[in-house]
């Protein structure tokens, strides 16, 4: 069981909690100790709004162990409005309807289950914007 590993990344997975660098002001996701832009080791926590667009995507037909229950599913690089790229699955969309540039929003979904007895891991996925009625 990977309980401590999953627990440590909860804030990032549930709420897109990332950082703003105190030195260069750039947005950072996922959170890390050293700024990838300027190598300054001091950051301010901040959340990302969860809106963005699809930068690239790929539909996985041969899922690796741990994800075989969910296939076929589409993973994407999502460019958040604030700048960072995020790797995440897309959900609530037919795989054929995805396109580069598609506007998406973050939702919290099941990422995987560690079997019938183990932990359920929740985290971010992205879906196309809901059409208001």
């Amino acid at each position: 069981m990977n309980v401590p590993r999953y627990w440590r990344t909860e804030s990032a997975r549930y709420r897109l909690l990332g950082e703003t660098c105190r030195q260069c002001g750039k947005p950072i996701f996922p959170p890390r100790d050293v700024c990838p832009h300027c190598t300054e080791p001091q950051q301010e926590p901040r959340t990302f709004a969860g809106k963005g667009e699809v930068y690239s995507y790929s539909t996985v037909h041969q899922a690796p162990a741990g994800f075989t229950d969910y296939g076929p599913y589409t993973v994407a690089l999502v460019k958040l409005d604030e700048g960072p790229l995020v790797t995440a699955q897309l959900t609530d969309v037919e795989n054929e309807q995805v396109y580069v540039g598609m506007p998406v929003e973050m939702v919290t979904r099941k990422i995987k289950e560690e079997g019938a007895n183990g932990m359920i891991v929740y985290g971010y996925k992205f879906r196309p914007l809901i059409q208001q009625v």
Partner: protein
Amino acid sequence: MIDVYIVGIGQTNAGEHWDRSLRDLGVDAMLAALQDAGVGQVETLYVGNMLAGELVAQAQLGALLADWSGLGCIEAIRAEAADASGAAALRMGYLAVASGASDLVLACGVEKTTDADSESVDQAWSSGMDGEYETSQGLSMPAVGGLLMRRYMHEHGVGREAFAPFAVNAHANGANNPYAMFQRPISVEAYAHSGMVADPVGMFDVAPLCDGAAAVVLCAADRARELAAKPVRVCASAVATDRVALHSRTDPLSLQAAHLSALKAYAQAGVGPHDIDLFELHDSFSVMAALSLEACGFAERGHGTDLGLDGEIGLQGRIPISTMGGLKARGHPLGATGIYQVVELAQQLRGEAGANQLDCRLGMAQSLAGSGATAITHILEA
């Protein structure tokens, strides 16, 4: 630094070895290389391997293979750099000789993937990516290829068919390599109709993981002249890294580590891309072949696929690649691949490449890890 030479090469077939274990394969390749060099003992052993811990619960491969091959109590250590582990072992061997620390070194790459089920192997292969923020999201290595290929097609306005030449060329060359996993040519039609692994990566866009082991014997100039009729000089050995996660790169379609590693290698050897006669690149995915050609200066950004479409990557072309099948047709036994690339360069430079023989003097091999976060480049001279 002391000049380093390859004086012996050995390899097993790349493929499915149901009757050979990880250590059996390693010993097979090591004994073949020792015999080719005409030596019975070495001072130092470096073993390149990626997944022995995950798939066969085996660590301490240096000592194990030294033990199992009868090399005794020599210095022996495993090097790991995901898919580039074999090249990493070669890098360690090169440094040992070049620094004067060791006079005779054996560098062996070995991988055993068929002892585990394919879903577990896929999951383990993805450990070369960012485990916390890529693998944990269900990203598989083929999906990494898919993300890169889809973005490449979008940014550079090409369709899937632009990548077909990489698979067709690899299989055409693999057909003449008795050690290759696949020794059958494939057609452009077969490429077009192949099933999807991670859309748009199809069956012929991704190299097959398999079992295999390859080894080289390294030493300095004076010893090399004693041992080998045609010693091959390692005139460059260079490593560079990049941000591990694809999403952390400033430009995902630019293989920064491959570029920097190649630049360092060219500088060491005092050459440029135009001097390279053949390039054993890391075609784990057809898109990686295109991106590698661009990163190493053989094509402008977005034009790697043009080299394929224009026939420049074939044996008659300007920059032959995958001359013995590449990762795509010879196979991709992960931690062993980096040594296979160099063994194949050595075969070409020694005139032992058979039907695929090129007239060549300078060959380059580049091994990439994961989505390109580690790049290890060697240039060999006949």
